């Protein structure tokens, strides 16, 4: 186990990406993710990699497409408005079956919004910001250490399933400093025989393409992709349970909201309320099964989110609306306090203290 160092979330993410073998980074400055670009600008030349500040978010994601098509581990990072711009390219990555890591350090929206932390890009990440039938694997860290771990994992999942993976961070996780271990996980090797690297007379040409004008064929492509998605849903769903065995009220929260929620759960327990929490680590695939099982035991759910309420829809779907689901949310860059969540817990518990 390597020694721990104190690092900012965004910088730890950047270093983890390089350690995971990403030598091609393309990005554009936007708060609050710019530390990633700045770190890459410093480090990439030292490790023989490529850092390129693109002329736009759109160009950056298309450069990612190019390097991914050429078989390289590659990534881009941005914050909410920038991800909207990249959405076209993300759809193309999915349509071309290309692996890449896209980082969204979320800020408040819509429009130009603000620069404070938010989770309001949940729908964009999970329901598809771009056009067409596709999914992203969406990873939601709640600490600097988990940001590092999920960066490694994100590249592996992208290569394993030949698809874009999104790391959905936020302004808090990206900006805060925590002790972190950057111990290198073992890199598996992945088949990249499909990449465009020149035939060198040894094979027929490779084509990276998402165009298909025959609808019966395009439907087959999409069905095949969704078979892969179904396999991912079965095998790659990640979540953390906290005090759920005897819980009567179950919070569902991810990212920074789960850190605040944990304090609220502990405070509730002190008051004698049996609160617990399920924290999705993969937002897609969503931990439907554990939520459905938990619904059989608990009285109610509370979805705690930094948005006007987006994940709450998926919680309701997961439990088939078999229990009441209440929203506890702040928006626009505001973060709820543990007390606000505790109040909601008390309210859902029946208001008795």
């Amino acid at each position, binding site marked *: 186990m390597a020694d721990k160092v104190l690092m900012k979330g965004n910088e730890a993410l950047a270093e983890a990406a390089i350690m995971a073998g990403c030598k*091609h980074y*393309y990005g554009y400055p936007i708060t609050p993710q710019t530390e990633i670009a700045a770190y890459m600008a410093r480090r990439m030349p030292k490790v023989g990699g*490529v850092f*390129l500040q*693109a*002329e*736009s978010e*759109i*160009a*950056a994601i*298309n*450069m*990612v*497409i*190019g*390097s*991914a*098509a*050429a*078989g*390289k581990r*590659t990534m881009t990072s941005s914050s909410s408005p920038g991800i909207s711009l990249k959405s*076209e*390219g993300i759809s*193309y990555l999915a349509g*071309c079956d290309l692996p890449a890591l896209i980082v969204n350090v979320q800020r408040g929206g819509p429009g130009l919004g603000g620069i404070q932390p938010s989770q309001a890009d949940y729908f964009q990440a999970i329901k598809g910001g771009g056009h067409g039938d596709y999914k992203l694997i969406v990873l939601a860290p709640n600490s600097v250490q988990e940001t590092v771990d999920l960066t490694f994992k994100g590249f592996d999942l992208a290569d394993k399933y030949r698809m874009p993976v999104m790391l959905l961070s936020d302004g808090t996780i990206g900006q805060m400093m925590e002790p972190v271990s950057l111990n290198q996980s073992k890199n598996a090797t992945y088949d990249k025989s499909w990449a*465009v*690297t*020149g*035939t*060198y*007379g040894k094979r027929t*040409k*490779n*084509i*990276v*393409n*998402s*165009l298909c004008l025959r609808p019966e064929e395009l439907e087959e492509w999409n069905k095949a992709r969704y078979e892969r998605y179904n396999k991912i849903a079965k095998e790659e769903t990640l979540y953390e349970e906290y005090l759920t065995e005897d819980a009567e009220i179950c919070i569902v929260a991810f990212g920074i909201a789960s850190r605040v929620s944990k304090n609220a759960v502990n405070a509730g327990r002190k008051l004698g309320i049996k609160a617990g929490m399920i924290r999705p680590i993969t937002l897609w695939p969503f931990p439907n099964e554990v939520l459905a099982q938990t619904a059989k035991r608990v009285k109610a759910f509370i979805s705690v989110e930094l948005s006007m309420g987006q994940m709450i829809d998926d919680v309701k779907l997961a439990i088939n609306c078999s229990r009441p689901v209440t929203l506890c949310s702040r928006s626009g860059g505001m973060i709820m306090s543990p007390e606000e969540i505790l109040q909601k817990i008390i309210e859902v518990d029946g208001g008795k203290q």
Partner: protein
Amino acid sequence: MIVFEKPKSLVDMPMHYCPGCTHGIIHRLVAEAIDELGIQHKTIGIASVGCSVFAYNYFDCDMVQAAHGRAPAVATGVKRANPENIVFTYQGDGDLASIGTAETVHAAARNENITIIFVNNAIYGMTGGQMAPTSLPGQVTQTSPYGRDTTQVGFPVKMCEMLSKVDGATYLERVAVNNVRNVRNAKKAIKKAFQNQVEGKGFSLIEVLSTCPTNWGKNPLDSLKWQEDNMTPYYPLGVYKDSTKEEK
């Protein structure tokens, strides 16, 4: 002795291009240049969106199909990943000079070591003949049914002239393929644009004036004449920048 044969870098298959369209000639010139430089094995082409969207089927080398206007950015990613590869884009006027203007200008500004083949036929062909950024003043199209009104929609974009002011660009030439002499010149220019990349000299763009008999509503011969009489005066042929010469 074989004096004329199909270039190795073209796949032997029917093309979807309309009769009389000059895409076929331009494809052939690109393939000949790749063959003659002996780079087919390490060349990667980037197809764009427009009539040449299926170029990934026609060139016999590794290919990527890019989103509309994004080919220079995709080419940048491919080239930066493996600089030993020879990377070219093949784009039309809507793709390169309208929706992809930024990608074009900034690839030039970076002197990205790639080759761009820019086919300018002053119209959107694939979608059925709408006004292009390069449609001529007064030109009647589906979306300029009363003729391109420059007071309302502005003037055509002259890419070679514009890019000639970009410090980074290495080689810019406008050619045409409407007669034998011009085809021979076009071939020389295209080959030089690839040769520059082989030698690491940087960004080369060849603008090829082309025709669209179908959407211009003219037969192939009249189209060649219309191009010569109307497009060539507005878009004069010639070398707009050659910093490989300045280096000597």
